[in-house]
């Protein structure tokens, strides 16, 4: 616990003349849940995509440290190495499950894919692991051969989570995981995420515009506005004693969070 898992310094991401992220720096430690909040267009999702290896930043460094290893720059390590880490050490749960699942492959196939990518070839073992993880995210293992399209939105979200966790990653990136779900399904997903974080000692970066979700799930919060981090700190401190005008506006605009 002496060094972070992820170290980000001076990250910029520009789309043409638009600066989506500006001078973002952060450390993420094992077992820590970091929330990124801010309104639509504040650069939250762009930042998450940069961190997760999907989108190369315009400037700055993102360094990941594999177990006991040195820090490695995610975008200077070479394609093969990055692909390998993306399939084994971290994963991203997309806001739209269609971006994170293979819709033409069965639920079990979706979960097994990352195991195969990590070198597992034994069909029986892959299937057994898939069953175990479906069960763990509260999906009925009897539906292992169903296509994701036959699942509800909340179930697809959980299938994405199972698909990533099966490879025992150290970081999970979540993009608005409760967006678009019914309130009762949201609560169930929150409970599940909390237990997984605790039991697996995962580090998590979660992008959300829901401050209630942020309060219940995260240890630490970064508030983004127009690509910049305007305030950060302990989650309850930022929510109960926001210092920046924009954080105060966000907190005061919420109904009962």
């Amino acid at each position, binding site marked *: 616990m002496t060094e972070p898992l992820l170290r980000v310094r001076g990250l910029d991401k520009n789309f043409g003349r638009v600066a989506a992220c500006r001078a973002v720096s952060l450390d993420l430690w094992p077992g*820590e849940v970091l929330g990124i909040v801010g309104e639509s267009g504040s650069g939250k999702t762009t930042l998450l995509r940069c961190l997760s290896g999907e989108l190369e930043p315009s400037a700055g460094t993102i360094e990941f440290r594999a177990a006991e290893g040195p820090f490695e720059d995610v975008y200077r390590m070479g394609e093969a190495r990055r692909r390998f880490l993306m399939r084994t050490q971290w994963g991203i749960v997309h806001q739209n499950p269609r971006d994170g699942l293979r819709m033409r492959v069965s639920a079990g196939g979706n979960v097994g894919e990352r195991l195969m990518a990590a070198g597992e070839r034994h069909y029986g073992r892959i299937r057994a692991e898939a069953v175990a993880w479906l069960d763990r995210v509260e999906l009925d293992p009897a539906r292992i051969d169903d296509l994701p399209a036959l699942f509800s939105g909340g179930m697809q979200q959980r299938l994405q989570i199972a698909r990533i966790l099966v490879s025992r990653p150290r970081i999970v990136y979540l993009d608005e995981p409760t967006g678009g779900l019914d309130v009762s399904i949201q*609560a169930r997903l929150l*409970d599940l995420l909390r237990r997984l974080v605790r039991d697996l000692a995962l580090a998590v970066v979660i992008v959300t515009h829901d401050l209630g979700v942020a*309060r*219940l799930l995260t240890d630490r919060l970064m508030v983004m506005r127009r690509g910049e981090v305007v305030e950060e700190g*302990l989650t309850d*401190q930022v929510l*109960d*004693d926001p210092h920046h005008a924009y954080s*105060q506006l966000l907190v005061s605009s919420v109904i009962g969070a």
Partner: protein
Amino acid sequence: MAAAIEIESLDKSFTLHLRGGTELRVLSGLSLTVERGECLALQGASGAGKSTILRCIYGNYRPDRGHLCVRAGDEAVDVAEAAPREILRLRRSTLGYVSQFLRVVPRVPVIELVMERAQESGAEEDVARARAAAILERLRIPRTLWGLPPATFSGGEQQRINVARGLVAEQPILLLDEPTAALDYENRKAVVDLVREAKVRGATVIGVFHDREVRDDVADRVLVLDKAEAA
């Protein structure tokens, strides 16, 4: 540092940017020492800064200036300067806090809400379960409710679950923000007994106690905050 808590020249104000930058000064130059094993009651009118002091110690409010040293084992941590993860560690190891409102993940049963606080502080699952059961019993929460989420519970029941969560990990320093508000006589007595037992095992307590009887029962010393000192 021998004392449990040493507060030195603490200033805390709130700048309301949405109200034209209005500044509310709540604490100004507050210095305060609480010895180990002592129970200090904070008293004063509404708005005098009682809860603000507790929240500053817990790291929930960020002071403008000053030092706020909390003794954790052999070291002293200045909450005013500590990084978020140090504060989280301090909370787990050292600071128990009972807030005025229960805020929890929906759908989670009462017993688990209480257990998780003990587990966060390092207790194994079975130990945590036993401790949670014991404290819920003491707080007179009927067994039939333990498996239910507290969303539909009465105000008094929710408050007692909050108390259970704050006390179950038996941290050496307890911050109690009106732990007996909304409680009837029997339940108030149950809370008072738990606080007294915490003192017997050596815990330091800082609390806001609405109820004079409760205050007389548990406090060794009363600090009266008035506007002269606080504003």
